[in-house]
């Protein structure tokens, strides 16, 4: 059995080796390039592919895989918005993902972004860079006592809710399908608007369904409390970035912690000669503000998560190749 992995980072290789040692009869090879029409040729002769990329999976690339007799795809992450399920159906692919690899990692990063904004860490960094070691007048705030609004209470949002309650925050949450384990906490409200209106700190933890593109737009910002802090460690497309920039300019939004951006594929994972070479206008409008913290899609990036992403995706790809039921099959019959 032969499996080919795309988009492999250096830090994944140790876990691949570990998996390989436990499966001596499976042959693994990999590239650090993502799957494109050109790189699809690398998988020729392999039985399954394991992928990870934020760019779309093109029909042309998938057609090539199909022509090599490959029909089993496993992604090492949760997000499936890079696939057009119709393409997969047309070409006869089966797909698995890793729906839960470390809810804690994202929840912790969310907490960390909130705390760094509340404690005005970028301003202190700036002060230190100017060798100014005064704490006055850069007064901070605490999560304790704040109202934290959570939209989406699945694997990640529910961990965020638990952490926020321990920090002494009042949590208000919305989900289309309330999580039964959280319902008795009395945190749910009936509409996303109620969350948006009440929150001192608003954090998003939903997937990017088509109807949720720009869930947070100019109208939503208008309903928020003055000085609200917005955290997005979910999907860049959930926030209308131009509306966010306007809300930061007007002071409506007091701070933003962003691990994802609408246009992140033009910036994140890339290495520029200098930060000035980044041309994306939204990124440029956000990066130099002392009330905005951008992290380059690092929330998931912990040893625990990477281990689970590599192991779960390879296990499921092998299961499919052996005609066994995978642990995390994706239903590609839905739109």
């Amino acid at each position: 059995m032969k499996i080919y992995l795309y988009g492999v980072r250096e830090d994944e290789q140790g876990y691949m080796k570990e998996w390989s040692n436990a499966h001596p009869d499976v042959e693994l090879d990999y590239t650090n390039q993502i799957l494109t029409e050109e790189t699809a040729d690398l998988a020729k002769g392999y039985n399954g592919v394991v992928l990870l990329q934020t760019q779309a999976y093109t029909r042309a690339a998938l057609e090539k895989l199909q022509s090599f007799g490959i029909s089993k795809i496993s992604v090492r992450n949760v997000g499936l918005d890079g696939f057009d399920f119709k393409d997969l159906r047309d070409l006869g692919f089966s797909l698995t993902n890793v729906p839960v690899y470390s809810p804690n990692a994202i929840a912790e990063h969310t907490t960390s972004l909130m705390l760094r904004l509340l404690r005005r860490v970028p301003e202190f960094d700036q002060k230190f860079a100017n060798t100014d070691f005064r704490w006055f007048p850069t007064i901070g705030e605490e999560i304790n006592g704040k109202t934290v609004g959570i939209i989406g209470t699945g694997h990640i949002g529910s961990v965020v809710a638990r952490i926020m309650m321990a920090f002494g925050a009042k949590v208000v949450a919305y989900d289309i399908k309330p999580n039964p384990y959280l319902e008795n906490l009395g945190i749910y409200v009936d509409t996303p608007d109620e969350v948006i209106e009440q929150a001192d700190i608003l954090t998003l933890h939903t997937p990017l369904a088509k109807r949720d593109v720009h869930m947070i737009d100019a109208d939503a910002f208008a309903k928020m409390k003055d000085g609200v802090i917005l955290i997005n460690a979910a999907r860049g497309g959930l926030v209308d970035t131009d509306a966010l920039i306007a809300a930061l300019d007007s002071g409506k939004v007091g701070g933003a912690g962003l691990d994802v951006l609408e246009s992140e594929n033009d910036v994140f994972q890339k290495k520029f000669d200098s930060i000035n070479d980044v041309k994306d206008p939204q990124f440029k409008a956000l990066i130099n503000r002392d009330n905005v913290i951008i992290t380059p899609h690092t929330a998931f990036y912990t040893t625990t998560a990477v281990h689970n992403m590599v192991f779960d995706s390879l296990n499921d790809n092998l299961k499919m190749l052996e005609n066994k039921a995978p642990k995390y099959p994706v239903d590609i019959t839905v739109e």
Partner: protein
Amino acid sequence: MKIFAYGIRDDEKLVLEEWKSTNPGVEVNFTGYDLTSDSAFLADDADGIVTMQNAHYSRDALEILNKLGIHNLSTRTTNIANFNFKDLKELGFKLTNVPDYCASSIAEHVIVLMGQLLQQQPQFTEKMHQGDFTLSPNIGQSFSSQTIGVIGTGRTGLAVIKLLQALGSKVIAYDIEHNSDLETQGLYADHLTELYQKSDVITLQLPLTSNTRYLINDSAIKQMKPGVILINCAHGQLLDTDALIKGLDSGQIAGAGLDVLDDETSVFGKIWSSLKNIPNGDIRDLLQRNNVVITPHNAFYTQTAVRKMVITAFDSNKALIEGKTPSTIVDLDK
């Protein structure tokens, strides 16, 4: 009734206004200056004094207050080490402090520092400013995969433990006196050595005494796990800075988050024209490392904490003036 306040900062004024509006019978005046023999006269016909300063309270200043007939003193902080109790007793003063204003503030700051180090945030920030948005090799560690040693389980230590447990960390604690809740949970190590050997991250939440001064020295650091992360938001002198630097150089210590430093008063609170001018070589060294996160003793400094400091101090001072004994009274015989 009149209260005069010293060392009032801009961020305290709003809270002060709030207190005045709920206590209309009290006339409050204040200055931004510390209480010294020069400024003591400003209190003139006040019935009580509310104060907060890092500098020592001189006997001269207290004698002037005594002559003005003022004997009710309330400090807006926990710290009472800058009062000479003998002076206070001889001159007939009563003193109150704010015993607990910032457990949550400090606990959250501990999490800020730990999070930045576990997620390698300084490295990512530095990479990003150079135009590098790649992940490898700066992989983070999840709180939920860490065993975290908490030395000292007083108010702040307990608050830290509560947050760490919510974040999914395994907590191991040490203190001479045991908290019964933590005891029931079986969190206490029998010896510091056990805590040192088992912890991926260690945070200091204990007071500075002659027994704890430089508790974390070469021999303590040697007993720790290679790659340990150290956090100190308690007192600079709990940690031997030379031993810390040695541990960072050898890699025994992978990162340090420090809100307090030994000899910090020579650096914090000031603006320097250049790093080169910083008089303390150890601090200069630490400031230049990207696996060391330093904050200028601002762990306590939140709106919530400042509000509690101001309200508690003024409430206590008013109670003293009314001849009551508030719960915040300091026993000057101890």
